[in-house]
């Protein structure tokens, strides 16, 4: 009953979410496209005109390679905070518990959905970048999406834990203000980390998003990421931690 290790049945929960996604795919796809477009338009065309190239990258390219990971993080977080909370309050999880699914299966399925949404978001950003000729197509897209999937497990897990502890939907707004936005700003998505004050550099080093950006930016611009194995390891560890956190929090919540 208190088993925290998910089984392969988590895929059934993921499949359920995909089934519902089919009913609302159009608004979802538009949402996934709108988010990165908004950042690119405002920061890229607005602020970007004033920015010098960063290293060897034009600011637009620097920005879009950050947004691939940043937008993916936001949509992963959105999925297991707001959307999971919604499913919790409409008793979808209660119904699932009356089947061979365990709480850990449900949590893992939700987190997997979050990571998938992250990948969809990243893919949408990639398409925009390719259409705008900011990046050129290649095999690098696969490891980039893999990185996004892995970081999505961490952020999806953390957001699920928050959602399980939040009593009301309003409480989730704090999660946006106190977690998603700060992480987005200290992880090297919009500007290089050297510009950050020392204290924030520490936070930045901890953030898995930082490491995802460290992998994605070189990959997308034709370079091998420096110390890629360490970066990858960090994200993978964070992913395990996130899944565990999500499973444990949802278990606590559903046992009442």
């Amino acid at each position: 009953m208190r088993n925290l290790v998910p089984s392969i049945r988590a895929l059934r929960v993921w499949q359920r979410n995909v089934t519902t996604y089919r009913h609302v795919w159009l608004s979802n796809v538009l949402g996934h496209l709108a988010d990165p477009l908004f950042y690119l338009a405002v920061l890229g065309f607005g602020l970007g005109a004033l920015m010098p190239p960063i290293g060897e990258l034009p600011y637009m390219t620097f920005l879009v390679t950050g947004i691939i990971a940043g937008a993916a993080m936001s949509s992963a977080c959105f999925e297991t905070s707001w959307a999971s909370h919604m499913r919790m309050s409409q008793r979808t999880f209660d119904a699932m518990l009356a089947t061979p699914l365990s709480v850990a299966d449900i949590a893992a399925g939700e987190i997997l959905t979050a990571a998938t949404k992250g990948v969809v978001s990243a893919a949408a950003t990639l398409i925009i970048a390719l259409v705008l000729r900011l990046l050129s197509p290649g095999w690098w897209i696969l490891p980039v999406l893999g990185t996004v999937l892995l970081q999505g497990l961490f952020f999806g897990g953390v957001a699920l834990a928050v959602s399980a502890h939040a009593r009301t939907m309003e409480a989730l707004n704090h999660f946006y203000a106190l977690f998603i936005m700060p992480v987005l700003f200290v992880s090297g998505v919009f500007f290089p980390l050297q510009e950050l004050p020392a204290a924030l550099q520490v936070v930045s080093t901890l953030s898995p998003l930082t490491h995802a950006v460290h992998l994605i930016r070189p990959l997308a611009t034709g370079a091998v990421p420096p110390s890629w194995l360490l970066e990858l390891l960090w994200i993978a560890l964070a992913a395990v931690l996130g899944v565990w956190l999500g499973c444990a929090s949802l278990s606590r919540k559903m046992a009442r």
Partner: protein
Amino acid sequence: MPSEVILARGLVKRYGDLEAVAGIDFRVEQGECFGFLGVNGAGKTTTLRMVQCVLAPTAGQLRVLGRDVASQARQIKARLGVVPQADNLDPDLTVRENLRVYSRYFGIRRRQAYERIAELLRFVQLDERAHEPVANLSGGMQRRLVLARAMINSPQLMLLDEPTTGLDPQARHMVWGRLRSLRAAGVTMLLTTHYMEEAAQLCDRVAVIDAGQILMLGRPEELVREHVGERCIELRPTQAGREGLAERLADLDAHCEQAGDTVFIYPRGQLDWGAIAAIPHERLLERSASLEDLFLQLTGRELRR
């Protein structure tokens, strides 16, 4: 293989200081319909949720389908059908998708699921609504869909938490009819209800539960005969009739209970009808004693705080 489907010994569920289930013993036999009767908060749902393997017992033994709920929850849940108190259909899915998605949770293969779903939708008479979103269904239809969903895995044990609460009489009778045909097919059922008629219509045996304890357990008609008698007279006195009512009732060879503005009289021997009719009243009627009388006597007529 023992014949009992559920075996509970000294079952306890505690939340902090609150003892929701205070050490109960019961067993449910193969093919039986067993009912828990009790007011809201008596511990019925808590007990049911422990049998369902979603709440861990604080103490005691609980075996379902020959397995232990703590260590073999998944195997037990694979053979259960659950109709919860509040409908928890998936509002993001259509009628048919609700069943298909659920069948996947049980690992039922596509082809087999298609046949089963078609059969179940006919059984609950929703085959013509298959492609509508569940929000379009009436309360009664949603309940029937929940019932169909609970049967997707051809369960050996059905758990029904107030299966017809909130339904109109027509919808209720339709659900009862379906449950009786399940029982006839040999499916074991455990249900909770606070509708005495429901218990009388469906249950082979009932347990009256109050404050987390079983007060009484047995066949409904035997319990009524033994503890209440055959007949009940309901008397609603006028204002004038209330004067000296207690003394007049004390003279009768009967057990009397008062609830709100009505007196319930359960005769022990020959009843002095003249004496009763002489009490000025708005309403006077005689009927067979029912489970409701037993229940009210046991759990007190006054509304709980």
